[in-house]
C-alpha cells in the first residue's frame, strides 16, 4: 500500500474530475453503485447506458480506456463464480452450442457480471482520480468514525515500513541458511510472524508516544479542511442522478 509517490491505481492529472473534493466523489460513486445494483437485470439497455455514463466520466477525467480496462482485470476471480451459474442453476433449460444451460442461471450470471463490472469500473475511476490520502480525508469528511480513518491512514503510512521489516527478517533467516520447504519449517515462519507482530506493536507504542508528545489527545487535528461548494456537489452528483433516471426508466419500461 501507498508505494511510490502515489498508489499504483492513481493516475496523476489535472482534469475536472481530479479537482473535485474527495468526499463528493465518494458519495457519487456510492450512489451510482446503489442505483446500478437496484436496476432490474432484464433491462439490458440500462446497463449499456451506465457503461456509456462511465465512459463519459473517464473521458472527462482523461483516463485512457486501456488503463481502465487493465485495472478491471482484478474482477476476474470474482467473475469465475458467475460463469459457473448457468451450469449449476435449476429450472428451465436452453441449448446453446450443444450445452444445456439454465435460463435462470444465465440471467444470474449476466446480473453478477454486469453489475460487478460497472461497480468495479466506477471504483477504478475513483481510485484513478483521487489520491489515497485524499480518499481518507473524504471518508473523514463523510463522518466515518475517526478511529477507522486513523487506522486506515496509519496503514497507509506504515505499510511500507512493516513490509521492509518483514523483508529484513527474511534476509536474516536466509543468510543463516534457512529455506522454507515443507511443513517442518512452518514453526520458524510462525515465530517470525509473531516477532513481526511484537515489533509492530512496540512501534505502535513509540508512535503513540511521539503523538502524545506533540499534543495528541485522541482526536486528529484538522489540517486540510476540504469543503465542497454547491457547484462541486452538483457536478459530482450528475453521474448518480443520470444513472437514477436510467434506472427508473428500466423499472417502468
Amino acid at each position: 500500500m501507498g508505494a511510490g509517490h502515489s498508489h499504483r491505481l492513481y493516475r496523476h492529472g489535472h482534469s475536472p474530475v481530479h479537482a473535485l473534493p474527495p468526499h463528493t466523489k465518494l458519495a457519487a460513486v456510492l450512489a451510482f453503485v446503489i442505483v446500478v445494483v437496484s436496476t432490474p437485470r432484464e433491462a439490458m439497455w440500462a446497463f449499456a447506458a451506465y457503461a456509456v455514463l462511465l465512459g463519459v466520466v473517464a473521458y472527462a477525467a482523461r483516463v485512457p480506456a486501456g488503463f481502465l480496462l487493465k485495472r478491471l482485470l482484478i474482477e476476474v476471480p470474482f467473475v469465475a463464480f458467475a460463469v459457473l451459474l448457468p451450469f449449476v442453476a435449476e429450472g428451465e433449460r436452453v441449448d446453446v452450442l450443444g450445452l444445456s444451460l439454465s435460463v435462470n442461471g444465465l440471467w444470474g450470471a449476466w446480473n453478477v457480471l454486469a453489475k460487478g463490472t460497472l461497480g468495479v469500473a466506477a471504483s477504478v475511476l475513483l481510485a484513478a482520480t483521487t489520491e489515497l490520502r485524499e480518499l481518507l480525508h473524504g471518508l473523514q469528511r463523510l463522518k466515518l468514525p475517526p478511529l477507522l480513518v486513523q487506522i486506515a491512514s496509519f496503514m497507509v503510512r506504515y505499510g511500507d515500513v512493516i513490509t521492509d521489516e518483514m523483508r529484513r527478517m527474511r534476509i536474516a533467516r536466509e543468510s543463516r541458511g534457512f529455506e522454507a520447504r515443507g511443513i517442518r519449517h512452518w514453526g520458524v515462519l510462525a515465530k517470525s510472524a509473531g516477532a513481526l507482530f511484537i515489533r509492530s506493536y512496540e512501534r505502535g507504542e513509540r508512535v503513540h508516544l511521539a503523538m502524545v508528545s506533540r499534543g495528541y489527545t485522541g482526536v486528529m487535528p484538522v489540517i486540510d479542511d476540504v469543503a465542497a461548494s454547491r457547484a462541486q456537489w452538483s457536478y459530482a452528483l450528475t453521474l448518480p442522478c443520470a444513472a437514477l433516471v436510467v434506472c427508473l426508466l428500466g423499472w417502468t419500461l
Partner: protein
Amino acid sequence: MDPVSTASLEVSGLAFAYPDGHQALFGVDFTIGRGERVALLGPNGAGKTTLVLHLNGILTGGAGTVRVAGLEVGKRNMAEIRRRVGIVFQDPDDQLFMPTVREDVAFGPAAAGLKGAELEARVDRALERVGMAEFKDRPPHHLSFGQRRRVAVATVLAMEPEILVLDEPSSNLDPASRRELADILRSLDVTVLMVTHDLPYALELCPRSLVLSDGVIAADGPTGDLLADDALMRAHRLELPYGFDPRSVPAPPARG
C-alpha cells in the same frame, strides 16, 4: 537578556521507579538556562530515556519537580508543557506518522489549534529552518534517513518550543548528514538538550554537558573538561572513539 538569568528547564529532586519496582532515577537536579546547548551523557541504562520522558510529562508520579520556563509539569498544564518541550525521538519513522511531510509538521501546531494561512506559514518556516522546504509534499518514507531526521526536527520546531530535546540525534547518520544536522542545530535559536553517546558530537555542539549515571547527575561542567577527565569517563563507562583526543580539538565554532 543574559541567557542564564531565566531558566528554560529546572529539574529538582527527580526520582522515579517503574511499576515493576525498577528504580531508574534517584534524585536528579539540574538547571538549563535559556539559549544554552547542553549534552546529556551516560552509559546505556543510566536512566536517560526515563529522564527525557519526564520532561514533557509522559512519565509522572515520582518524587521531585520539573519546570519548563517556570511552568511546573503536571496534569493541569500538560497541553502547554507539550507545546513548550519538543522531543525528537531516535527513530524518525516513529516521529513521522502522517502521510506527507507537510501534514506531519502541521500536526503539532494544528493540535494546538492553529488553522489556515497561519498554520501554513508555521509549517513553511519550520521546514525552511531545517532546509527541507522543497520536500513539503513528499511522503516521509521516500526521504533518506538524514532527511527524515531533519523533518523530525522540523515537526518539533513548528511548535515553537522553549526547549528542544534530541534523543541520539546523530545515530544512523552518515558523516555528511551528521554535519548538516550539526549546522542546523547550531543555527537554531532555542535551548537544546541533547541525549547522546556520540561524545565528539557533544563536544562539537554543546559547551556544557551533564553526566547521568545510575540515576543521578554524576558530573556537570564544560564538555571539553569532562571528556578530558579520564577517571570520570572510566567510572561512568564513557569512551571516546579510537584516536580522539578532546584536548587537541580546536574550540567549537561560535553560535551561527
